[in-house]
């Protein structure tokens, strides 16, 4: 694993640094500026050192020889507070350098600040230029060796500069959106290096971030909800109560409702029943959970094949992990079945299923044939042969999907034997139970209208059998008890829905809604979204 990734890792910290600075930026929608643009510049500008160094290569006689370059992308609003630094490598002849921001299409034969939608701080006189040919006294001058930073507060639309780590204070206000980091040079010999965050900054930008984060948090926390007093409290209590009921925290819900005067819209027995089933799922006892569900909510699972499949899949995983031990291999078929024919034609259905998947299988044709070859190997034990009959499909896919896992995989039959025996604590009977359960599960999957998601789920589950130590395998994550939670939620939702109660509690809907709004803020250029990470806000004491 180590050697091939070495080159990739070298660039990773830099990427991480930017990601850490601007965690709320979705770079697929709004990429961050990472270097100067070789296309978006005037001829007199030369770039080098991965397009981070800028030098002047014009005549530099008059201001008509000024030249600028913009970064590759505009600053995403979701940065909240964006910052970049420019080190003056050489002030050249006169040190007519401008550092700032400009919108797309602003003339590049100029220094930043001289034109509309262009803003700059100039080294020769220390003035700030706000879309105007005349500057305003702003800060000290800067020259060779100085590091000048430019910060843009995208919440308030203001810009400040720093010199050698000292904040010089606000330079511009009412900035438009979608500005690009820009530098301009005007006389020969001028050279500047940019740091867009790949390297640590001289200035402590994190402290400024803290201020904005604290402010945004305070704005949210101090927001007063309109409406008569008490109404909002009531709404919140309702939200909490419904959440408790939804997840079956029965006693807590009762106590809460009692002290707040809330009412349930589900009777307590029903909640307790759900609670019991959900507990079984969370404990990994899926088999018992299924029978309880079938007993208490007859017809629910029978009519919801996908849910049944989900549960069975989980049950399979729990069997591998040794938590769910079915009383007998027939436990799967003990409840009344609706469609028996499939049970008999396992192989048939496997084949019929194979067809739509053939294109996928073809992609990985060679591993498939290898495995097939091993099947012919007479040295294989019976059990493995019997298993590969059914399991082949899953194994093949696994092989194809997890190419990188080759080393871990036990192709050798001897090792495979050991692996299997280790898997079920050496019990052959247990292993056989799992295998037979797997067959049934595969059969069941035929009944479900399989989407890529469930296909993947089945593959992942079956893949567990391919490893000597499933816990340490690439698919070992499935064994984590946390993975029971989505199954639990799905079953819970189905039960509630069958009783005409909402599938999702209002609290979770509100949460999802808020999350969606934050994403929308980012797309609408509202900088506060940078500090409106929902999980972060909720985890604050």
């Amino acid at each position, binding site marked *: 694993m180590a050697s091939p990734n070495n080159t990739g890792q070298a660039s990773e910290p830099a990427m991480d640094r930017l990601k850490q600075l601007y965690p709320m930026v979705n770079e697929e929608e709004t990429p961050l500026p990472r270097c100067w643009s070789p296309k978006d510049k005037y001829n007199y500008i030369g770039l080098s050192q991965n397009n981070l160094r800028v030098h002047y290569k014009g005549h530099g006689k008059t201001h008509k020889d000024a030249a600028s370059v913009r970064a590759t992308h505009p600053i995403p609003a979701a940065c909240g507070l964006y910052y970049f630094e420019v080190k003056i490598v050489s002030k050249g002849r006169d040190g007519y350098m401008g550092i700032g921001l400009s919108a797309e299409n602003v003339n590049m034969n100029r220094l930043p600040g001289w034109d509309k939608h262009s803003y700059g701080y100039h080294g020769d006189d220390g003035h700030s230029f706000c879309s105007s040919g005349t500057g305003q006294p702003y*800060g*000290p001058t800067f020259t060779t060796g100085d590091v000048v930073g430019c910060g843009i507060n995208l919440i308030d639309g203001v810009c400040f500069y720093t*010199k050698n*780590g*000292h*904040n*010089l*204070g*606000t330079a511009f206000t009412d900035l438009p959106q979608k500005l690009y980091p820009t530098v301009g040079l005007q006389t020969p010999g001028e050279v500047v290096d940019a740091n867009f965050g790949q390297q640590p900054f001289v200035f*402590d930008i994190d*402290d*400024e971030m*803290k*201020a904005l*984060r*604290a402010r945004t948090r305070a704005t949210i926390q101090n927001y007063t909800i309109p409406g008569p007093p008490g109404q909002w*409290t009531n709404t*919140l*209590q309702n*939200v*909490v109560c419904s*959440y*408790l009921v939804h*997840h079956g*925290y029965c006693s807590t819900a009762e106590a809460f409702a009692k*002290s*707040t005067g809330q009412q349930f819209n589900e009777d307590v027995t029903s909640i307790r029943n759900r609670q019991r089933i959900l507990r079984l799922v969370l404990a990994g006892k899926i088999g018992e959970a299924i029978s309880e569900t079938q007993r208490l909510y007859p017809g629910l699972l029978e009519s919801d094949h996908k849910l049944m499949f989900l549960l069975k899949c989980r049950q399979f995983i729990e069997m591998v992990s040794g938590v769910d031990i079915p009383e007998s291999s027939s436990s799967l078929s003990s409840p009344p079945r609706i469609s028996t024919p499939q049970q008999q034609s396992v192989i048939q259905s496997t084949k019929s299923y194979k067809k739509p998947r053939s294109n996928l299988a073809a992609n990985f044709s060679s591993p498939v044939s290898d495995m097939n070859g091993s099947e012919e190997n007479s040295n294989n034990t019976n059990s493995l042969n019997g298993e590969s009959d059914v399991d082949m499909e899953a194994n093949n896919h696994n092989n194809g999907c997890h190419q990188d896992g080759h080393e871990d995989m036990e192709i050798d039959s001897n090792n495979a034997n050991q692996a299997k025996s280790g898997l079920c604590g050496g019990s052959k009977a247990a292993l056989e139970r799992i295998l037979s359960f797997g067959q049934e599960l595969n059969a069941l999957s035929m009944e479900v209208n399989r989407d890529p998601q469930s296909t993947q789920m089945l593959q992942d589950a079956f893949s567990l059998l391919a490893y000597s130590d499933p816990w340490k395998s690439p698919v070992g994550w499935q064994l984590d008890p946390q993975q029971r*939670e989505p199954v639990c939620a799905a079953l819970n939702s189905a039960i509630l829905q069958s009783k005409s109660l909402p599938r999702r509690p209002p*609290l979770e809907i509100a949460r999802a809604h808020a999350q969606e709004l934050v994403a929308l803020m980012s797309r609408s250029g509202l900088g506060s979204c940078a500090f409106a990470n929902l999980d972060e806000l*909720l*985890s604050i004491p």
Partner: protein
Amino acid sequence: MGQILAYRGDVLVQLVPLPLGQTLHTKQPSFRQDPNNGRPYIEEIYSTDEAKCLHALICLKNAVIGSNRQKGFVVQHGVISRLIQIISCDSSPVSVRIEATIILGSIAKGTDEHVKALVDMNIIPLLVKGVLEDGDESSARLVEASLCCLRTLLQSGLAPTGTLAQDSDFVQHLLALLRASITSQMAIATILTAECKTPECQDLLSAHGAVYSLTALLCSPHRKVQMPALSCLAKIIFQNRGVALAAASASFGGRPLPDILTSLMAQDMPKGMQLSAARCLTYLHRAGALSASDDIIKGKTLSCLTRLCDKNHDNGIKAIAAETLGYLTEVDMILQKDASILNHLITNLAMYFKYAMEEVPPLQAQLRQAAFRAFASLGANDEDIRKKIIETEGLMDHIVCGLQDSSPGVRLAAIRCLHSLSRSVQQLRTTFQDHLVWKPLMNLLKHASDDDVVTVASSTLCNLLLEFSPSKEPILELGAIDLLCGLTRRKEAALRLNGIWALMNMAFQAEQKIKSQILKALGTEQIFRLLSDPEVNVLMKTLGLLRNLLSTKPHIDQIMNLHGIQIMQAVILILEGNHSAEVKEQALCILANIADGDSAKDFIMTNEDVLKKLASYMMHSSVKLQVAAIFCVSNLVWKEENGALERQARLKEMGVHKLLQQLINTSDTLLFDKVKTAMTQFSDS
């Protein structure tokens, strides 16, 4: 699934039943209607039945909490003495004493009169006794209640403070109690802040490990503990190098104290916390424990304070931030320079005068004073910064107003600011002239009783009296000479220095009339007194004054004519005294000036003693003194002047010419030039 906890916590906050205040509120009206019937329990406070008494105390406690009216009743009806009797009686059960102490603590939070009533009953020693109580769990509650009451009283500023922190055992006990509870931590930090008043207290607290204890408190998760801990830390390190050094090297949980303070200045901390932490770091720097070049000072603290001066903060915060900034940057040029470009500081400080106009008096004065102090520090050394300050719109007007402000603090700060700015030659010639700053300044000098004001004002006056300053004339007209001569008679060395210095500046290239006025007002006796001043600077400036008086021929002759004998005595006094070369050089220069006169020359020529002295100084080991003596000789023998030949003959006779011939071989160029000039004056012989 785990997220439920976060929601639950937030929402349950809203479920608090009825606020306590409401029950009290409903009770009050009935009290108002019938004050005697409303408090049946008052009688029982005097009961000897402990249970009854306890019950009555609890009723009283509930009644007085948050009600100044109830507290007033307790004070007026002498219930306090009963309460004090309870707490001072060791035989009363602890539970009763606890309740009584809590009631007293509650009363201490009332009006100033309530506090005074408690202080007058000499309650503090009783509370101290309560604090020292040790034993079981219930006495811990008594200790806590006593601490809280003591804290409230000492914090009020109405109780005498400064004695408790001198008691080594008590300090040790208090610091040991810091482990008890959050409430005790808050109370103790505040008590120590109020009590620590002298360098000895600071040392004592430090010796008992207060620095370490406070560092630990700063790491508390509770803001209400951190805040008083910061105040206390500031108090014990202020201007105390030893304690500050201990603090700079203290640490808790592996984190050095300066780092802990830096983290408390982070921008997501409450503003008051940022400010207090910055204040502690400022004090550490000024006490010599943290260097100005340390990033914690030059980077974090400076940036924090300049940021807190901007318009987004409360005026109270702004005032302390600027005051602290003024202290931080007072002596370090680099910090002054950095601060002047940070966060638009100068523009922001100028806004303080505007904010002041919208504020209530105490804060109004604080804002003005803070701005002046900060400006004074910023402009102390750098001409560019001074220019930036003075160019700030309306600032000079504010200074002129500040000199006449009703608050002494503002007046002093305004003079400091003016003094700082008066170091600029350009400003003396332009802005100061335009704004007639000498008027309020002279007014202050004439009427001020505060030595600090007089010191800074007279320093400023010195600068205003420099020869190129156009303010010189009008200042004279306002009676400056008498005033300055008065200063030379003060017992404070700084004032004598400023007085004589200003007179020296005034005499430089002045008209004859002014010089005579100075001599007359000062008097030769006073000059003699100043010439034997223990402060060498005073002596130097006095000699400087004499030099300035004795310039240009007619002035020299006239002055020598009037005061020649005394002046010659004075010069001889210096030359014979045990003084440094610098001082004697001044005296020789005075002789040289005298030698430049016409009739005045005789004062030297007829005094063989002086001539001998001149000859010996020509061969002195100090080149400076040789140069000055030869300069005097060449003035005496200047050939175009009447009687030059006789004087040359006389000096030759004294062997001076020979000495010059010896000295012509010197390698010192300055000395060589002087010798050569003198030699050419002697007619060929």
